Structure formats: structure tokens, C-alpha cells
């Protein structure tokens, strides 16, 4: 009996792999690496072969069971697996879980690390602890890949009118890092840049980028002569302070607002302060 169960488990895993291989090899734009032998918490690393810029990857974790399941059962069954994966995470790439059943050859998928779009035009990669299973087929794979591409479009800033932010050069040891050069582009709005100090803090950089995107989407005024620089510093008590300095390239006038790291978590909170800065720069006195 135990031997039978072991055999069943072996074949279940084999078939789950076979189904995954058939599904992924159905598209000729995917390069699939089997990582099941390594203890990375994922089974496959998939690279998209695309003309779009950057290395675009997503991960796949496999689960399978013999008996058929309903969506709600699948969601319940996979919850512990997602929680376990959350302990491996966060993952640097979008990650999905494929769930196969053997008796009826069903396939489901649920996001583990999901690219999530926000109202203010930004995206974040969020670890999921609750399963939200959907049928897995060629169309679902297309949707997964579209979602992955959207994430990298956002992440690499390849949207029209945007620029790729590269880490600024640092000066010699012991000297304060050189700030990124501020560049005015042809787009009809303000251009934001980020200091070296901010580029080194992922969470605050992401929050500042979200604020920038919110401002770009919300502010209808033509601001092509303006540049914004996000910086990170400490106040006299050693607390982190995030600053946003708006400069008019024509008049050379500038104004700075100071925020706490918590403030910039809320772009809607930052926006009124940005408008105050605009007034200071564009309508001084």
C-alpha cells in the first residue's frame, strides 16, 4: 500500500512536470530552466525571449495531486504552500504556482509573487498568502506572460516618454556620493531624478517613484521646464528625511519639501505638498 502511494506520488510529480513542459514549450519565445534540483523554492525559471529591453524572467512552482478538486478546495489546499513560499520570498521576479490534478487532468494557477497595478499608475510585486486559483491553459499562459511584461515595462521604465534610471556614479571613498545628473527630456512634463543615497534604499526609492508617477499622471499643467530631485538625508536627530526639490531650469528658482519615509508611502499625501512647491517656484512672492 505504502509502495503504491509512493509510486503514485512519483508519477503525479512526473506528470505535473510533463504537463508543464508541454504547456511552456508551446510558445517558442520562452527559455525554460529546470531548477527543481536546487533548493530555491521554485521549480522552473522562465526567461522571455523578447525584443523588449532587459532580462525578463518569471518563476514557476509546481504542485499536484491525484484526486480532482474544485476551485475552493484548490485555494484551501494551496494556502500552506503559499505561506511556505512566502518564507522563501520576496522573489526578485513574478512567480506563479501551477497546480495539476491527475484523475481529470485539470490545471490551475495562482500568483505567488504577483505584479499588482495601482490606481496611480505604478506597479508593485506582492507576495500572496492566499491562493486565487484560475484555470491553466494556453490563454492563461498568455495572460501570465502579458502580466510579466507589464511588470518589467514598469520596472525598467520602458513606457513611452520615460527614461531608464541608472545608478549614479559615486565619487572616491569618503566623499559624499555624487548625485544623479538631472536631465530634461522632450516630454511635456516634469522630470524626476533620484539621488545616489535614495537609489540605495529599495523601499524608499519605490515609494518615491510611485509619488513621481502619481504626480505625472495627476498634474495636468505643462511643466517641461521643471525638474524634480528626490534625495534622502538625516535630520539633526538622526532620523531619515526624504526631500523633494523642484527646480525651474529657466528661472533657476527652486523649492524643497521634506517628508518622512511614511509620508511618501502615500502619493495622495505628497501631491498637495508638490503643488505648494510648484506655487513657490512658478509664482514666487
Amino acid at each position: 500500500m505504502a509502495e503504491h502511494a509512493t509510486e503514485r506520488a512519483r508519477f503525479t510529480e512526473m506528470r505535473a512536470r510533463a504537463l508543464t513542459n508541454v504547456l511552456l514549450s508551446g510558445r517558442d519565445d520562452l527559455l525554460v530552466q529546470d531548477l527543481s534540483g536546487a533548493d530555491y523554492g521554485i521549480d522552473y525559471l522562465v526567461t522571455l525571449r523578447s525584443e523588449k529591453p532587459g532580462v525578463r524572467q518569471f518563476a514557476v512552482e509546481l504542485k499536484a495531486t491525484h484526486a480532482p478538486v474544485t476551485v475552493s478546495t484548490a485555494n484551501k489546499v494551496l494556502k500552506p504552500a503559499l505561506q511556505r513560499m512566502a518564507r522563501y520570498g520576496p522573489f526578485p521576479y513574478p512567480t506563479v504556482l501551477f497546480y495539476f490534478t491527475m484523475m481529470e487532468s485539470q490545471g490551475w494557477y495562482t500568483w505567488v509573487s504577483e505584479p499588482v497595478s495601482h490606481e496611480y499608475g505604478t506597479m508593485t510585486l506582492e507576495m500572496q498568502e492566499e491562493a486565487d486559483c484560475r484555470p491553466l491553459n494556453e490563454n492563461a499562459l498568455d495572460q501570465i506572460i502579458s502580466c510579466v511584461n507589464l511588470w518589467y515595462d514598469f520596472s525598467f521604465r520602458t513606457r513611452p516618454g520615460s527614461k531608464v534610471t541608472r545608478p549614479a556614479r559615486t565619487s572616491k571613498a569618503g566623499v559624499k556620493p555624487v548625485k544623479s545628473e538631472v536631465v530634461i527630456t522632450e516630454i511635456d512634463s516634469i522630470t524626476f531624478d533620484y539621488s545616489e543615497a535614495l537609489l540605495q534604499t529599495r523601499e524608499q526609492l519605490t515609494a518615491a517613484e510611485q509619488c513621481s508617477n502619481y504626480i505625472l499622471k495627476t498634474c495636468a499643467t505643462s511643466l517641461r521646464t521643471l525638474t524634480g530631485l528626490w534625495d534622502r538625508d538625516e535630520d539633526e536627530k538622526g532620523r531619515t528625511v526624504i526631500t523633494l526639490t523642484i527646480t525651474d531650469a529657466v528661472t533657476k528658482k527652486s523649492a524643497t519639501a521634506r517628508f518622512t519615509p511614511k509620508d511618501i508611502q502615500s502619493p495622495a499625501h505628497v501631491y498637495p505638498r508638490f503643488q505648494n512647491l510648484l506655487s513657490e517656484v512658478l509664482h514666487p512672492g
Partner: protein
Amino acid sequence: MADAKDYIGKRGEFVIGEKLIDFCGRPLPFFDPHPLGEKCGIFDFLVELVTNDKTPPYFLVSAKATKKGMTKKSLELKVGVKARNVQAMVRCPVPAYLIGVDEPAAEAYIVSMHGNLKGAISSIPTTYPLDAATLTDLWTEVRSYWKTLDHKLKNSKFQM
């Protein structure tokens, strides 16, 4: 750098592996396929039958995947096998089958390689898709072959 032919061949093997491990609503699948790798010239899989037998019966599979689709008149799958490979498969004392894979559709069709086949093959009939009915018949056929075969070596120079 893998070319398109390698890609189609690899995908063909994936499709065959997946079809052969189909549980078909049973507690265990009918077959346990073992890929033989690129270095094995004619055959691509050694496939064991899942049974309670002490020594599992097995058969050999040559896999051919194609993007060319079907012939217009007879609706046969366009897969090609050279005459010398056909003859080698027919001479094989172990049950040997050719499985053709329609790569875009991820469908597979099986034919046996036995009897008086000699010449090259340019297409195979699609009468036997690798579905539950075919898998059941295939399992029965191969098992019967091994049951009736007196395959034990009568004598050997290398006796213990």
C-alpha cells in the same frame, strides 16, 4: 544554440512523455517512459509497463515530431523515417513503435514497427491517437507479447 529542429524534437518528446503518463482516471498510469537521450540513434524512449509483474514488460519508441501537418488526401501525419531505420526497428526483438507528434496541436499518433516494412516512411496514419483507448490496447498488446515470449537466454559463456 538550439535550432528549430531541436526545439520541435524536444517538444515532441515532451508531448509523448505527457501522453504516456496520463492516468486515464486510474490510480496509476499505464506506462513509465524513460527518455534514452540524444546518443541513442534510433529509439527515443524505453517505456515500461506499470504492472505488478516482478520484471516489468517494456517496449521501445522512436519519436518523430513535425510542424508539417497532415497529407491532403489521406490525412496522414507527415513524418519521415529513413529506410535503414525502419529496417532496424522491424528487426528489433523488443516491441517497437513509431510515435508521430503533430507539434502545433500537441497530439501524438502511434504505429507499430513490425512485419514486412522495409522502405522509408513519409507519413503515418492517424488512426491511433495516444488517448485512453489506445493506451489501454497498447498496454495489453505489449504485456501479451512478453507473456508468450520465451525470451530467457538458454546458455551463456559468462555464467556465474
